[in-house]
């Protein structure tokens, strides 16, 4: 019986992230449009786009290999698994034992690797540019992400997200400069991972600046739909990760009743709205940086993560 309830909650969580992801993307777009005093597309436009893409025919390049067709499914699967591992509205889920920060980073890293392969596979020059840029961002963002994971793991003594959220709620956390550094670094890495504005513009098709769009230029039909959905999921995942680690209030603990679960969902939605609004506000207030400026930006994130670890080392060894 307990197993069935656990399964139900985990299943709800997986479906919830899948259904909410396009909505979050739509919401961010809407807020950005409003901030620019435009009306913007409706909130459910991303769902319409996805449905339309699913109905459309797939056009393949002549020299695309089998890998090109397989990759959208791989990316989507890896991202969905990663997104459903993050405790969004409840901790202590059935799969929580595997909800490890390093595992999530690895899943996202493999999705990124496959996407870069797909960019190279069709043999167009844009795909190549996009893949090489994406890898440049990745080589800098992933060490920074790992430093953040180290900082959090040193503090909480665990890399599991449920334990981490529980530790953040406990009174022994205190006031830590390392946590602040980790938060700033995580925000910078999150912007880079999702290709948001200072790094990459998700709405552009300008040859000189696009990164993510350049890689998926050859995709069409249901493949493109899967990739777009995976991108939305990734945005939701990153936001949920930040929220789960740094504002874990309102998460319903393991074994709580239905009412508490619903409160957890409501609080989670509220946090998402807030996070999406802040993201849109940030994106409208900043200009995109040059591609060769990105290493400095991410180097700063890496530096913050390192500094957080070092400072933590001092205060622990006293």
């Amino acid at each position, binding site marked *: 019986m307990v197993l069935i309830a656990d399964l139900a909650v985990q299943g709800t969580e997986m479906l919830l992230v899948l259904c909410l992801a396009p909505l979050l993307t739509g919401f961010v777009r809407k807020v950005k449009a409003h901030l620019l005093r435009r009306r913007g597309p409706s909130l459910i436009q991303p769902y319409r786009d996805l449905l339309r893409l699913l109905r459309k025919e797939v056009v393949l390049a002549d020299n695309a290999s089998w890998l090109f067709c397989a990759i959208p499914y791989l990316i989507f699967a890896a991202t969905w698994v990663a997104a459903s591992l993050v405790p969004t509205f409840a901790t202590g889920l059935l799969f929580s034992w595997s909800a490890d920060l390093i595992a999530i980073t690895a899943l996202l890293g493999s999705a990124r690797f496959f996407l870069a392969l797909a960019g190279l596979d069709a043999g167009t020059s844009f795909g190549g540019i996009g893949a090489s840029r994406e890898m440049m961002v990745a080589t800098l963002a992933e060490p920074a992400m790992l430093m953040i994971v180290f900082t959090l793991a040193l503090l909480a003594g665990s890399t599991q997200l449920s334990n981490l959220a529980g530790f953040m709620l406990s009174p022994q956390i205190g006031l830590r*400069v390392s946590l602040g550094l980790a938060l700033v670094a995580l925000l910078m890495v999150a912007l880079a991972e999702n290709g948001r504005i200072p790094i990459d513009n998700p709405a552009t098709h300008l040859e000189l600046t696009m990164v993510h769009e350049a890689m998926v230029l050859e995709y069409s039909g249901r493949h493109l739909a899967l990739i777009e959905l995976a991108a939305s999921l990734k945005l939701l995942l990153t936001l949920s990760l930040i929220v789960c680690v740094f504002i874990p209030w309102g998460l319903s603990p393991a074994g709580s009743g239905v009412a508490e679960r619903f409160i957890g969902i409501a609080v989670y939605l509220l946090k998402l709205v807030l996070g999406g609004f802040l993201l849109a506000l940030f994106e409208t207030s900043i200009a995109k940086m040059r591609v060769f400026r990105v290493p*400095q930006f991410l180097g700063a994130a890496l*530096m*913050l993560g390192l500094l957080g670890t*070092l400072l933590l080392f001092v*205060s622990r060894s006293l």
Partner: protein
Amino acid sequence: MHGLSFDIAHLLAGGLVLTSFMLLYQDRLYALLNVFALQAFVLFLSVAWQAYAQGAPHLYVTAAIALVLKAIVIPGALHRIVARLGIHREVETIGGIGLTMLAGIGLVALSMVVILRATPAAAPLAREDLALSLSVVLLGLLMMVTRRNAVSQVVGFMSMENGLILAGTGAQGMPLVVEISIAFSVLIAFIVIGIFLFQIRERFDTVDSRVLDTFRGERS
């Protein structure tokens, strides 16, 4: 394991190290000066908190000196100097920002290893302050070494002195006379440097310190 008092002191001292890194990261002179003022403000908060935590009222004077002199007077004067020299668009770094950052991280790690090994008997607050202040001093030195522009070298020098003040407040029992004389000597040094800047500029039409090396006959 430690009280809130230690955590806040750690937060502020860590913030000081962080602003040192921000100084290394900046490549525009005005931004550099603003970050320097921010660092002095963090120093003020840190010293004031130490004064409160240690119950040492004379440290409030140190904090006030840091606030007035370092956060307001010197950045303001440097702003005016930069504006009058007309060099507000340039900062060059040797070896690029990434390498400098890595070197800075290495220096922070070094100072922590050294201080934590050297002072096992001291109070935790003093040890932690000493470790972080040594890193601020070393980062200031790094800044002086890596920058060619004379104004950013001055900022490096001043931020080094911020680290010294942090060390002085962490070690309990530093007399007020020493504090005031340090502050005074910094002001004098600042005035002398200011005059030198204009002299260098008048003589060589630039404040790039490489020109001095070539003038002395060294190969750069």
